[in-house]
């Protein structure tokens, strides 16, 4: 593993920001770090980056301590900004040098990434002369210009228009292709579904969901199938409810009924089945369910 967090704890006065948190990140994957506001995501990231010391627990990143790993980690913080009065290329090279990169290499990489983000003709402009969209792209470049092996993106899509959202998705795909590992923290569940391999959902500093996304979705999958067909005949055995959804039909199954039984029943009845799958549950719903469930729990006590 590229990152190992063991029993991490951080307290600010009476507030326990991170509570006995443990998880791992595999090299080369895109890992989703999720949770409501105030859950402790940013605090956790700051501890991994050695910005803030933990009260208890151990962090092993890139085979060593957080302090040793700093040069090889890239970070796009949630509260982010840029120098205003400096030239774009100079700023990128400076930030890369602060990470310990060699000047010439940093310059080269900066120019490459500026080109990839469509900013190559702005290399010598002052940052304050760039439009907001350009500055947002520039911020992403600033986080990775030093060729890090592990990248933390905290709310990278915040405030981006759809075109730039696609650009950032492209960056994440490129990083993955280069063999880098990405930890993505965001509220955009639809994007997590598309991008992430494994996730960790934190609530109130504690781990509430952890593991491969597919497994989690399966865990929360309602006992139902989604069928795309012109119509569903009534009276199918084992089907307790039929609900139209997104141009298809969600069939809720009784206990003991396997999805393939329903498929066989449909085919036998001559239904023109165009698509058939176990009903997916959007991650957003899982998130809300888990988080509000916990809220209710705590309200009850």
């Amino acid at each position: 593993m590229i990152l190992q967090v063991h029993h991490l704890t951080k307290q600010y006065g009476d507030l326990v920001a991170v509570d006995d948190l443990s998880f791992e990140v595999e090299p080369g994957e895109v890992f989703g770090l999720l949770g409501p506001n105030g859950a402790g995501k940013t605090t956790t990231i700051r501890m991994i980056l050695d910005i803030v010391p933990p009260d208890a627990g151990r962090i092993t990143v890139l085979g060593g301590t957080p302090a040793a790993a700093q040069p090889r980690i890239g970070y796009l913080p949630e509260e982010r900004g840029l120098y205003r009065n400096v030239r774009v290329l100079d700023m990128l090279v400076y930030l890369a040098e602060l990470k310990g990169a060699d000047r010439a290499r940093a310059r080269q990489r900066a120019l490459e990434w500026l080109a990839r983000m469509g900013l190559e003709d702005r290399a010598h402009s002052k940052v304050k002369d760039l439009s907001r969209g350009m500055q947002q792209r520039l911020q992403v470049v600033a986080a990775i210009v030093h060729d890090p092996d592990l990248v933390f993106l905290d709310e990278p899509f915040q405030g981006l228009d759809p075109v730039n959202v696609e650009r950032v998705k492209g960056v994440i795909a490129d990083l993955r292709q280069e063999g880098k590992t990405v930890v993505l923290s965001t509220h955009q569940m639809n994007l997590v579904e598309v991008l992430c391999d494994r996730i960790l959902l934190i609530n109130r500093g504690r781990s509430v969901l952890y593991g491969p996304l597919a497994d989690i979705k399966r865990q929360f999958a309602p006992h139902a199938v989604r069928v795309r067909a012109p119509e569903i005949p009534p009276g199918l055995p084992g089907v307790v409810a039929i609900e139209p959804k997104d141009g298809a039909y969600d069939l809720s199954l009784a206990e003991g009924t396997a999805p393939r039984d329903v498929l066989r029943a449909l085919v036998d009845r001559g239904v023109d089945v165009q698509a058939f799958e176990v009903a997916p549950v959007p991650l957003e719903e899982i998130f809300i369910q888990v988080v509000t469930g916990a809220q209710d729990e705590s309200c009850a006590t």
Partner: protein
Amino acid sequence: MNWRKVWTIARHEYLTNIRRTGFIIMTAIVPALGIIGLILTVLLLPRGEAVAAWLERQFDVGRKPIGVVDRSGYFTPILPEYRESFVLYEDPEAAEAALRADELQAVLVIGEEYLESGQITALTRESFGEAALADSERVRTFLVTHLLAEQVDPALARRAADPLGNLQARILSETGQERGGGMVFTFLIPYFLALFLIMTIFSSSGYLLQSVAEEKENRIVEIIISSVRPTELMAGKVLGLGALGLTQVLVWLGSAWGFTGGMATLLALVGSVGIPARVFILGVVYYLLGYLLYAVLMAGVGALGTTMRESQQLAGIFSFIAFIPYMLASFVMINQNAPVARVFSFFPLTAPTMMMLRIPLGEVPWVDIAGSIGALLLSIPAALWFGAKLFRVGLLIYGKRPTMREIWRILRG
């Protein structure tokens, strides 16, 4: 401590700030003033004597003539050039009456046997011994000129009467002979020198503050803090901007050197004051120590502010404290070893400014020098510790300035 990173930060701060218009203007002020001064003195040089005479007349109190009763015969008649200031009286009573009537400053009664016995009486209204002495040069030249008038060549008579009239004062210093300066220069030039040094300390510390507060306001600080240690960041900024201040000082010193060198060869009127090596060395020491102390405190306090304005307000307290010795300058100039001056010399925050004001004025007890340097050397590490802690934590607090209680908790660790 990764010194390569400290260097990167220092270089970045130096290059970024040296291009600021504010800095360029401030650095150019001294050479500009020098040029203006040069032009003025060149314009005034042909009329130099007239200017000097005019200045002398401004300070003249106005003098009445001196009555002369001459029993020896050598002073009758009075030579033309002295007739304005010396009036001959046949009758001693008449002279006394004129003195009583305040028409005369004094009456000189020259005895019959003056040549052999030197008998001469000066009569004045008050025991104003000073007045008589003040005029003794004039009286002396008056007497000598008249005594020699018939006997020798007039030029010889004049020279004998006023042998030191054209005296040129010169001071022997380390480098050779320097022109003697007036009282004005002995005081003013060190005063302004110290003032300029203080200005660079505060302009560099000001840039430091600005840089810290800007990075916080820009929100870029979080990326920086994930790349370098807070102590490396602080060290880089303090050193980079210290180098900037030094550059400014060197430009000023260089232009001052060039100008006084130029002026000395051009002018006979204006003297330049050679700065003794002792003053120069101590000046450098206090400058460096003063900068380190203030820079570190400013960085820490500046990191606490949430906006640039707030940071500047917080740091303004230090500027004010450092300036206290200048508010006391009139006392210090009279006696640089006055108790009030000595007290402020031992307090680290006022020590650099106070000592830089005292030292050029004259001898300062070495106890004061050793003590003030010692106090600074002890306080700088303490300030570093204090400032670094504030810096480390202050950088990540957005939105609200920490209260005094929170700051106390931060310091305790």
